[in-house]
Protein backbone atom coordinates (compact mmCIF):
# COMPACT_ATOMS: atom_id res chain seq x y z
CA UNK A 1 0.00 0.00 0.00
CA UNK A 2 1.32 3.44 -0.89
CA UNK A 3 1.94 5.90 1.91
CA UNK A 4 -0.43 8.78 2.49
CA UNK A 5 0.69 12.27 3.31
CA UNK A 6 -0.81 15.72 3.79
CA UNK A 7 -0.29 18.26 1.06
CA UNK A 8 -0.87 21.96 1.56
CA UNK A 9 -2.21 24.24 -1.16
CA UNK A 10 0.25 27.00 -0.25
CA UNK A 11 -1.30 29.92 -2.10
CA UNK A 12 -4.64 29.07 -0.45
CA UNK A 13 -3.31 28.59 3.10
CA UNK A 14 -3.70 31.65 5.35
CA UNK A 15 -2.16 30.24 8.53
CA UNK A 16 -5.39 29.77 10.47
CA UNK A 17 -3.78 26.83 12.23
CA UNK A 18 -6.79 24.51 12.63
CA UNK A 19 -4.78 21.64 11.13
CA UNK A 20 -2.31 21.94 13.98
CA UNK A 21 -5.15 21.81 16.51
CA UNK A 22 -6.69 18.73 14.94
CA UNK A 23 -3.54 16.86 13.97
CA UNK A 24 -0.70 17.85 16.31
CA UNK A 25 0.93 14.43 15.75
CA UNK A 26 2.19 15.42 12.29
CA UNK A 27 1.54 19.17 11.97
CA UNK A 28 3.70 21.85 13.55
CA UNK A 29 3.59 25.56 12.86
CA UNK A 30 6.43 27.67 11.50
CA UNK A 31 7.29 31.09 13.01
CA UNK A 32 4.62 32.70 10.83
CA UNK A 33 1.89 30.20 11.72
CA UNK A 34 1.95 28.14 8.54
CA UNK A 35 1.87 24.34 8.83
CA UNK A 36 4.98 22.20 8.71
CA UNK A 37 4.00 18.61 7.91
CA UNK A 38 6.37 16.37 9.82
CA UNK A 39 5.16 12.86 9.03
CA UNK A 40 2.96 10.50 7.07
CA UNK A 41 -0.75 9.98 7.56
CA UNK A 42 -0.67 6.55 9.12
CA UNK A 43 -3.75 4.34 9.43
CA UNK A 44 -4.41 5.43 13.04
CA UNK A 45 -4.21 9.12 12.07
CA UNK A 46 -6.45 8.82 9.02
CA UNK A 47 -9.69 9.84 10.74
CA UNK A 48 -8.09 12.88 12.37
CA UNK A 49 -6.39 13.83 9.09
CA UNK A 50 -9.74 13.71 7.30
CA UNK A 51 -11.20 15.90 10.00
CA UNK A 52 -8.37 18.40 9.52
CA UNK A 53 -8.98 18.45 5.76
CA UNK A 54 -12.69 19.10 6.32
CA UNK A 55 -12.07 21.73 8.98
CA UNK A 56 -9.61 23.87 7.02
CA UNK A 57 -11.41 27.19 6.45
CA UNK A 58 -9.44 27.74 3.22
CA UNK A 59 -9.86 24.16 1.95
CA UNK A 60 -6.08 24.22 1.59
CA UNK A 61 -5.34 20.70 2.79
CA UNK A 62 -5.49 17.39 0.97
CA UNK A 63 -4.53 13.82 1.74
CA UNK A 64 -2.48 12.51 -1.19
CA UNK A 65 -1.10 9.05 -1.95
CA UNK A 66 2.62 9.07 -2.45
Amino acid at each position, binding site marked *: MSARTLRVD*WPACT*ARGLCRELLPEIVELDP*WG*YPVVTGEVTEDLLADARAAVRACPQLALRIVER
Partner: protein
Amino acid sequence: MNAARSPVPVPDDILVRPGPALLRGIADGPSLAAHRERYGALPRLSLSELGDLVGDVGLRGRGGAAFPFATKLAAATAGRRPVLVVNLAEGEPASSKDMALALTRPHLVLDGAYAAAAALGSRELHVVLPGDRPVAAERMRAALRERPERLRVQEHTASPRFVAGQARAVVELLERRPNLPVTAWQPEAVSGVRGRPTLLSNAETWAHVGLLVLRGTADYRRLGTTAEPGTTLLTVTTQGSVPQVHEVELGSPLRDVLPADDGSPGIVGGFHGSWATAETLSRARVSVPGLQTLGIPLGAGVVLLPGPGSCPLQLTSRIVDHLAGQSAGRCGPCLNGLPALASALQGVVFGTESTARVEQLCGLVVRRGACAHPDGTSRLVRSMLLTFPDEIAAHARGGCAARPVEVAS
Protein backbone atom coordinates in the same frame (compact mmCIF):
# COMPACT_ATOMS: atom_id res chain seq x y z
CA MET B 1 8.53 43.84 0.85
CA ASN B 2 11.66 45.07 -0.81
CA ALA B 3 12.00 45.35 -4.56
CA ALA B 4 15.75 45.02 -4.92
CA ARG B 5 16.82 45.16 -8.53
CA SER B 6 18.46 42.14 -10.09
CA PRO B 7 22.27 42.25 -9.72
CA VAL B 8 22.31 40.94 -13.30
CA PRO B 9 19.87 42.94 -15.41
CA VAL B 10 17.69 41.40 -18.13
CA PRO B 11 19.88 42.14 -21.15
CA ASP B 12 18.78 44.32 -24.06
CA ASP B 13 21.63 42.94 -26.09
CA ILE B 14 23.31 39.53 -26.17
CA LEU B 15 26.06 37.95 -28.22
CA VAL B 16 24.99 34.70 -29.87
CA ARG B 17 27.95 32.55 -30.89
CA PRO B 18 27.55 30.25 -33.90
CA GLY B 19 27.30 26.62 -32.78
CA PRO B 20 27.51 23.08 -34.15
CA ALA B 21 23.78 22.24 -34.41
CA LEU B 22 20.98 24.59 -33.28
CA LEU B 23 23.11 27.67 -33.85
CA ARG B 24 24.76 26.47 -37.03
CA GLY B 25 24.73 28.99 -39.87
CA ILE B 26 23.02 31.73 -37.90
CA ALA B 27 24.67 34.25 -40.24
CA ASP B 28 21.97 33.24 -42.80
CA GLY B 29 19.51 35.28 -40.75
CA PRO B 30 16.24 34.27 -39.08
CA SER B 31 13.91 34.26 -42.12
CA LEU B 32 11.73 31.28 -43.05
CA ALA B 33 13.28 31.26 -46.55
CA ALA B 34 16.82 30.91 -45.15
CA HIS B 35 15.59 28.26 -42.71
CA ARG B 36 13.96 26.15 -45.47
CA GLU B 37 17.03 26.61 -47.65
CA ARG B 38 19.14 25.01 -44.93
CA TYR B 39 16.77 22.36 -43.60
CA GLY B 40 14.25 21.67 -46.36
CA ALA B 41 10.53 21.08 -45.86
CA LEU B 42 9.18 20.03 -42.47
CA PRO B 43 8.43 16.28 -42.63
CA ARG B 44 5.07 15.04 -41.36
CA LEU B 45 5.53 12.54 -38.56
CA SER B 46 3.22 10.17 -36.76
CA LEU B 47 3.04 10.25 -32.98
CA SER B 48 5.01 7.02 -32.68
CA GLU B 49 7.72 8.32 -35.02
CA LEU B 50 8.01 11.49 -32.94
CA GLY B 51 8.14 9.44 -29.73
CA ASP B 52 10.90 7.26 -31.20
CA LEU B 53 12.97 10.30 -32.23
CA VAL B 54 12.95 11.98 -28.83
CA GLY B 55 13.21 8.67 -26.97
CA ASP B 56 16.19 7.43 -29.00
CA VAL B 57 18.40 10.40 -28.10
CA GLY B 58 16.99 10.71 -24.56
CA LEU B 59 16.00 14.36 -25.10
CA ARG B 60 15.59 16.20 -21.81
CA GLY B 61 13.68 19.43 -21.17
CA ARG B 62 15.89 22.51 -21.09
CA GLY B 63 13.90 24.62 -18.66
CA GLY B 64 15.95 23.50 -15.66
CA ALA B 65 14.40 20.24 -14.45
CA ALA B 66 15.92 18.12 -17.28
CA PHE B 67 12.77 15.99 -17.40
CA PRO B 68 12.78 13.34 -20.17
CA PHE B 69 10.74 14.73 -23.05
CA ALA B 70 9.57 11.28 -24.21
CA THR B 71 7.96 10.67 -20.78
CA LYS B 72 6.19 14.02 -20.94
CA LEU B 73 5.05 13.30 -24.49
CA ALA B 74 3.67 9.89 -23.48
CA ALA B 75 1.78 11.43 -20.53
CA ALA B 76 0.34 14.22 -22.69
CA THR B 77 -0.93 11.80 -25.34
CA ALA B 78 -2.59 9.31 -23.02
CA GLY B 79 -5.97 11.05 -23.03
CA ARG B 80 -7.69 13.90 -24.80
CA ARG B 81 -6.19 16.00 -27.60
CA PRO B 82 -3.30 17.91 -26.00
CA VAL B 83 -2.70 21.65 -25.94
CA LEU B 84 0.82 22.69 -27.04
CA VAL B 85 2.79 25.54 -25.50
CA VAL B 86 6.08 27.09 -26.59
CA ASN B 87 7.43 28.93 -23.57
CA LEU B 88 9.78 31.84 -24.24
CA ALA B 89 9.16 33.53 -20.88
CA GLU B 90 12.71 33.40 -19.65
CA GLY B 91 12.13 34.80 -16.17
CA GLU B 92 15.70 34.28 -15.02
CA PRO B 93 17.60 37.48 -15.93
CA ALA B 94 20.90 35.59 -16.25
CA SER B 95 19.49 33.19 -18.86
CA SER B 96 19.20 34.33 -22.47
CA LYS B 97 19.25 31.11 -24.44
CA ASP B 98 15.59 31.18 -25.44
CA MET B 99 16.06 34.83 -26.36
CA ALA B 100 19.02 33.76 -28.52
CA LEU B 101 16.84 31.23 -30.34
CA ALA B 102 14.06 33.78 -30.87
CA LEU B 103 16.60 36.14 -32.41
CA THR B 104 18.48 33.67 -34.59
CA ARG B 105 16.50 30.43 -35.00
CA PRO B 106 12.79 31.13 -34.48
CA HIS B 107 11.75 28.68 -37.20
CA LEU B 108 13.67 25.78 -35.71
CA VAL B 109 11.69 26.34 -32.49
CA LEU B 110 8.42 26.59 -34.43
CA ASP B 111 9.22 23.54 -36.59
CA GLY B 112 9.49 21.48 -33.39
CA ALA B 113 6.12 22.73 -32.17
CA TYR B 114 4.32 22.46 -35.54
CA ALA B 115 5.67 18.94 -36.14
CA ALA B 116 4.43 17.93 -32.67
CA ALA B 117 1.06 19.61 -33.26
CA ALA B 118 0.63 17.62 -36.50
CA ALA B 119 1.74 14.35 -34.88
CA LEU B 120 -0.54 14.85 -31.86
CA GLY B 121 -3.51 16.22 -33.78
CA SER B 122 -3.43 19.33 -31.58
CA ARG B 123 -5.70 22.21 -32.54
CA GLU B 124 -4.31 24.61 -29.99
CA LEU B 125 -0.78 26.02 -30.06
CA HIS B 126 0.23 28.82 -27.71
CA VAL B 127 3.42 30.87 -27.85
CA VAL B 128 4.36 32.68 -24.65
CA LEU B 129 6.57 35.70 -25.32
CA PRO B 130 8.84 37.40 -22.78
CA GLY B 131 7.44 40.67 -21.40
CA ASP B 132 10.85 42.13 -20.67
CA ARG B 133 12.72 41.19 -23.89
CA PRO B 134 10.79 43.15 -26.51
CA VAL B 135 13.21 42.63 -29.42
CA ALA B 136 13.12 38.83 -29.03
CA ALA B 137 9.32 38.91 -28.68
CA GLU B 138 8.98 40.97 -31.87
CA ARG B 139 11.30 38.64 -33.79
CA MET B 140 9.16 35.68 -32.74
CA ARG B 141 5.96 37.46 -33.79
CA ALA B 142 7.53 38.21 -37.17
CA ALA B 143 8.49 34.54 -37.55
CA LEU B 144 4.92 33.48 -36.72
CA ARG B 145 3.57 35.79 -39.43
CA GLU B 146 5.81 34.02 -41.96
CA ARG B 147 4.40 30.54 -41.25
CA PRO B 148 2.10 29.06 -43.88
CA GLU B 149 0.49 26.45 -41.57
CA ARG B 150 -3.25 26.74 -41.05
CA LEU B 151 -3.04 26.02 -37.33
CA ARG B 152 -3.77 29.29 -35.57
CA VAL B 153 -1.22 30.26 -32.94
CA GLN B 154 -2.28 32.22 -29.88
CA GLU B 155 0.32 34.68 -28.64
CA HIS B 156 0.65 35.66 -24.99
CA THR B 157 3.02 37.99 -23.19
CA ALA B 158 4.43 36.91 -19.83
CA SER B 159 4.87 39.30 -16.91
CA PRO B 160 8.41 40.61 -16.40
CA ARG B 161 8.88 38.60 -13.21
CA PHE B 162 11.20 35.78 -12.15
CA VAL B 163 8.46 33.20 -11.56
CA ALA B 164 6.33 34.12 -14.62
CA GLY B 165 7.90 31.42 -16.79
CA GLN B 166 7.15 28.63 -14.32
CA ALA B 167 4.89 26.03 -15.95
CA ARG B 168 1.82 26.52 -13.74
CA ALA B 169 2.19 30.31 -13.93
CA VAL B 170 2.11 29.97 -17.72
CA VAL B 171 -1.02 27.79 -17.56
CA GLU B 172 -2.61 30.52 -15.42
CA LEU B 173 -1.66 33.14 -18.03
CA LEU B 174 -3.23 31.03 -20.77
CA GLU B 175 -6.42 30.79 -18.74
CA ARG B 176 -6.40 34.61 -18.40
CA ARG B 177 -5.65 34.69 -14.71
CA PRO B 178 -2.64 36.46 -13.13
CA ASN B 179 0.64 35.05 -14.47
CA LEU B 180 1.66 33.55 -11.10
CA PRO B 181 2.31 30.00 -9.86
CA VAL B 182 -0.49 28.01 -8.24
CA THR B 183 -0.54 24.54 -6.73
CA ALA B 184 -0.31 21.77 -9.33
CA TRP B 185 -2.16 18.70 -8.11
CA GLN B 186 -1.22 16.92 -11.34
CA PRO B 187 1.54 17.47 -13.92
CA GLU B 188 0.62 19.87 -16.76
CA ALA B 189 1.07 16.98 -19.21
CA VAL B 190 -1.85 15.21 -17.47
CA SER B 191 -4.01 18.21 -16.60
CA GLY B 192 -2.98 21.68 -17.73
CA VAL B 193 -4.84 24.35 -19.71
CA ARG B 194 -8.58 24.01 -18.92
CA GLY B 195 -7.83 20.55 -17.52
CA ARG B 196 -6.55 19.28 -20.87
CA PRO B 197 -3.24 17.45 -21.27
CA THR B 198 -0.72 20.21 -21.98
CA LEU B 199 2.65 19.71 -23.59
CA LEU B 200 4.53 22.76 -22.37
CA SER B 201 8.23 23.19 -23.11
CA ASN B 202 10.63 26.05 -23.50
CA ALA B 203 12.07 27.30 -26.78
CA GLU B 204 15.32 25.34 -26.58
CA THR B 205 13.52 22.04 -26.01
CA TRP B 206 11.27 22.68 -29.04
CA ALA B 207 14.32 23.64 -31.13
CA HIS B 208 15.88 20.26 -30.35
CA VAL B 209 12.61 18.56 -31.34
CA GLY B 210 12.68 20.59 -34.57
CA LEU B 211 16.26 19.58 -35.32
CA LEU B 212 15.46 15.91 -34.69
CA VAL B 213 12.44 16.04 -36.99
CA LEU B 214 14.40 17.80 -39.76
CA ARG B 215 17.67 15.92 -39.50
CA GLY B 216 17.01 12.61 -37.74
CA THR B 217 18.71 10.85 -34.86
CA ALA B 218 21.90 9.75 -36.68
CA ASP B 219 22.78 13.36 -37.42
CA TYR B 220 21.83 14.39 -33.87
CA ARG B 221 24.11 11.69 -32.43
CA ARG B 222 27.15 13.01 -34.32
CA LEU B 223 27.55 15.42 -31.41
CA GLY B 224 27.74 14.81 -27.69
CA THR B 225 28.38 11.46 -26.05
CA THR B 226 26.73 8.04 -26.45
CA ALA B 227 24.92 8.45 -23.14
CA GLU B 228 24.06 12.12 -23.75
CA PRO B 229 23.85 12.87 -27.46
CA GLY B 230 23.57 16.35 -28.89
CA THR B 231 24.24 19.82 -27.63
CA THR B 232 22.97 22.31 -25.08
CA LEU B 233 22.84 26.09 -24.87
CA LEU B 234 24.71 27.98 -22.17
CA THR B 235 24.38 31.63 -21.21
CA VAL B 236 27.72 32.87 -19.89
CA THR B 237 27.73 36.23 -18.13
CA THR B 238 30.98 37.82 -17.02
CA GLN B 239 31.41 41.08 -15.16
CA GLY B 240 31.00 44.12 -17.37
CA SER B 241 30.36 42.42 -20.70
CA VAL B 242 27.37 41.50 -22.84
CA PRO B 243 26.00 38.00 -22.00
CA GLN B 244 27.11 35.37 -24.48
CA VAL B 245 25.06 32.38 -25.58
CA HIS B 246 27.12 29.35 -26.59
CA GLU B 247 26.02 26.02 -27.99
CA VAL B 248 28.26 23.23 -26.68
CA GLU B 249 28.36 19.48 -27.11
CA LEU B 250 27.15 17.52 -24.10
CA GLY B 251 30.19 15.99 -22.42
CA SER B 252 32.52 18.82 -23.44
CA PRO B 253 34.65 20.64 -20.85
CA LEU B 254 32.89 23.63 -19.30
CA ARG B 255 36.14 25.60 -19.33
CA ASP B 256 35.87 25.83 -23.14
CA VAL B 257 33.33 28.62 -22.71
CA LEU B 258 34.90 30.29 -19.68
CA PRO B 259 37.34 33.18 -19.96
CA ALA B 260 40.93 31.96 -19.64
CA ASP B 261 42.78 32.54 -16.34
CA ASP B 262 39.71 33.94 -14.57
CA GLY B 263 40.57 31.78 -11.58
CA SER B 264 37.54 32.81 -9.57
CA PRO B 265 34.38 31.01 -8.48
CA GLY B 266 31.10 31.19 -10.35
CA ILE B 267 27.44 30.25 -10.17
CA VAL B 268 26.15 27.38 -12.31
CA GLY B 269 22.40 27.17 -12.92
CA GLY B 270 21.52 30.81 -12.35
CA PHE B 271 19.91 32.56 -9.38
CA HIS B 272 18.41 29.19 -8.37
CA GLY B 273 21.75 27.49 -8.99
CA SER B 274 24.89 26.67 -7.06
CA TRP B 275 28.28 28.20 -6.40
CA ALA B 276 31.31 26.34 -7.71
CA THR B 277 34.97 26.97 -7.00
CA ALA B 278 37.34 27.86 -9.85
CA GLU B 279 38.82 24.40 -9.47
CA THR B 280 35.42 22.69 -9.87
CA LEU B 281 34.58 24.88 -12.87
CA SER B 282 37.87 24.00 -14.55
CA ARG B 283 37.32 20.24 -14.34
CA ALA B 284 33.55 20.13 -14.90
CA ARG B 285 32.02 18.72 -18.06
CA VAL B 286 28.72 19.93 -19.46
CA SER B 287 26.53 16.96 -18.59
CA VAL B 288 23.25 16.71 -16.74
CA PRO B 289 24.21 13.74 -14.50
CA GLY B 290 27.88 14.82 -14.39
CA LEU B 291 27.14 18.27 -13.00
CA GLN B 292 24.51 16.79 -10.69
CA THR B 293 27.26 14.60 -9.21
CA LEU B 294 29.50 17.63 -8.70
CA GLY B 295 26.65 19.30 -6.82
CA ILE B 296 26.21 22.02 -9.43
CA PRO B 297 23.12 21.06 -11.49
CA LEU B 298 23.11 22.60 -14.97
CA GLY B 299 19.57 23.95 -14.58
CA ALA B 300 18.72 26.13 -17.56
CA GLY B 301 22.38 26.41 -18.56
CA VAL B 302 23.38 29.62 -16.84
CA VAL B 303 27.00 30.33 -15.90
CA LEU B 304 27.61 33.52 -13.93
CA LEU B 305 31.18 34.67 -13.38
CA PRO B 306 31.40 37.71 -11.14
CA GLY B 307 35.15 37.80 -11.70
CA PRO B 308 38.24 38.10 -9.51
CA GLY B 309 37.94 40.57 -6.68
CA SER B 310 34.20 40.38 -6.26
CA CYS B 311 32.75 39.05 -3.02
CA PRO B 312 30.60 35.91 -3.40
CA LEU B 313 28.81 36.61 -0.13
CA GLN B 314 27.76 40.08 -1.19
CA LEU B 315 26.61 38.85 -4.59
CA THR B 316 24.58 36.02 -3.02
CA SER B 317 23.03 38.51 -0.63
CA ARG B 318 22.05 40.85 -3.47
CA ILE B 319 20.58 37.96 -5.48
CA VAL B 320 18.56 36.73 -2.49
CA ASP B 321 17.31 40.31 -1.82
CA HIS B 322 16.13 40.37 -5.40
CA LEU B 323 14.57 36.89 -5.26
CA ALA B 324 12.72 37.76 -2.05
CA GLY B 325 11.16 40.69 -3.90
CA GLN B 326 10.30 38.44 -6.84
CA SER B 327 8.15 36.10 -4.75
CA ALA B 328 4.59 36.09 -6.02
CA GLY B 329 3.72 36.71 -2.38
CA ARG B 330 1.01 34.05 -2.34
CA CYS B 331 2.61 31.25 -0.34
CA GLY B 332 3.20 32.07 3.32
CA PRO B 333 6.55 30.31 3.74
CA CYS B 334 7.98 32.13 0.69
CA LEU B 335 6.34 35.50 1.43
CA ASN B 336 7.70 35.48 4.99
CA GLY B 337 10.67 33.16 4.71
CA LEU B 338 12.57 34.72 1.81
CA PRO B 339 12.74 38.25 3.29
CA ALA B 340 13.82 36.69 6.61
CA LEU B 341 16.46 34.69 4.76
CA ALA B 342 17.64 37.77 2.86
CA SER B 343 17.96 39.68 6.10
CA ALA B 344 19.82 36.85 7.90
CA LEU B 345 22.17 36.60 4.94
CA GLN B 346 22.87 40.31 5.09
CA GLY B 347 23.79 39.70 8.71
CA VAL B 348 26.35 37.11 7.60
CA VAL B 349 27.81 39.58 5.08
CA PHE B 350 28.14 42.24 7.79
CA GLY B 351 29.47 39.71 10.28
CA THR B 352 26.63 40.24 12.73
CA GLU B 353 24.75 36.97 12.25
CA SER B 354 25.88 33.36 12.43
CA THR B 355 25.19 30.95 9.60
CA ALA B 356 22.98 28.81 11.87
CA ARG B 357 20.02 31.16 11.40
CA VAL B 358 20.55 31.13 7.62
CA GLU B 359 20.65 27.32 7.56
CA GLN B 360 17.50 27.13 9.67
CA LEU B 361 15.59 29.47 7.34
CA CYS B 362 16.76 27.52 4.28
CA GLY B 363 15.34 24.36 5.83
CA LEU B 364 12.10 26.13 6.63
CA VAL B 365 11.25 27.29 3.09
CA VAL B 366 12.08 24.24 0.95
CA ARG B 367 9.22 22.20 -0.52
CA ARG B 368 6.73 24.61 1.00
CA GLY B 369 5.44 26.55 -1.98
CA ALA B 370 3.39 26.18 -5.15
CA CYS B 371 6.57 26.53 -7.18
CA ALA B 372 10.27 25.89 -6.61
CA HIS B 373 11.19 29.55 -6.01
CA PRO B 374 11.96 29.03 -2.31
CA ASP B 375 13.76 25.75 -3.06
CA GLY B 376 15.97 27.36 -5.70
CA THR B 377 16.76 30.34 -3.49
CA SER B 378 17.69 28.05 -0.65
CA ARG B 379 19.87 25.94 -2.98
CA LEU B 380 21.95 29.01 -3.90
CA VAL B 381 22.35 30.04 -0.26
CA ARG B 382 23.29 26.54 0.92
CA SER B 383 25.89 26.26 -1.85
CA MET B 384 27.37 29.56 -0.70
CA LEU B 385 27.64 28.22 2.87
CA LEU B 386 29.38 25.06 1.59
CA THR B 387 31.71 26.75 -0.90
CA PHE B 388 33.00 29.73 1.07
CA PRO B 389 33.65 28.79 4.73
CA ASP B 390 36.84 30.91 4.80
CA GLU B 391 35.14 33.99 3.39
CA ILE B 392 32.28 33.56 5.87
CA ALA B 393 34.79 33.36 8.73
CA ALA B 394 36.54 36.49 7.41
CA HIS B 395 33.23 38.37 7.34
CA ALA B 396 32.47 37.19 10.87
CA ARG B 397 35.75 38.88 11.91
CA GLY B 398 34.60 42.06 10.19
CA GLY B 399 36.64 41.72 7.04
CA CYS B 400 36.24 40.57 3.50
CA ALA B 401 38.87 38.88 1.39
CA ALA B 402 37.54 40.45 -1.79
CA ARG B 403 36.88 44.08 -1.04
CA PRO B 404 35.56 46.21 1.80
CA VAL B 405 31.91 45.61 2.63
CA GLU B 406 29.93 48.34 0.99
CA VAL B 407 27.27 49.96 3.10
CA ALA B 408 23.91 49.24 1.52
CA SER B 409 22.30 52.43 0.31
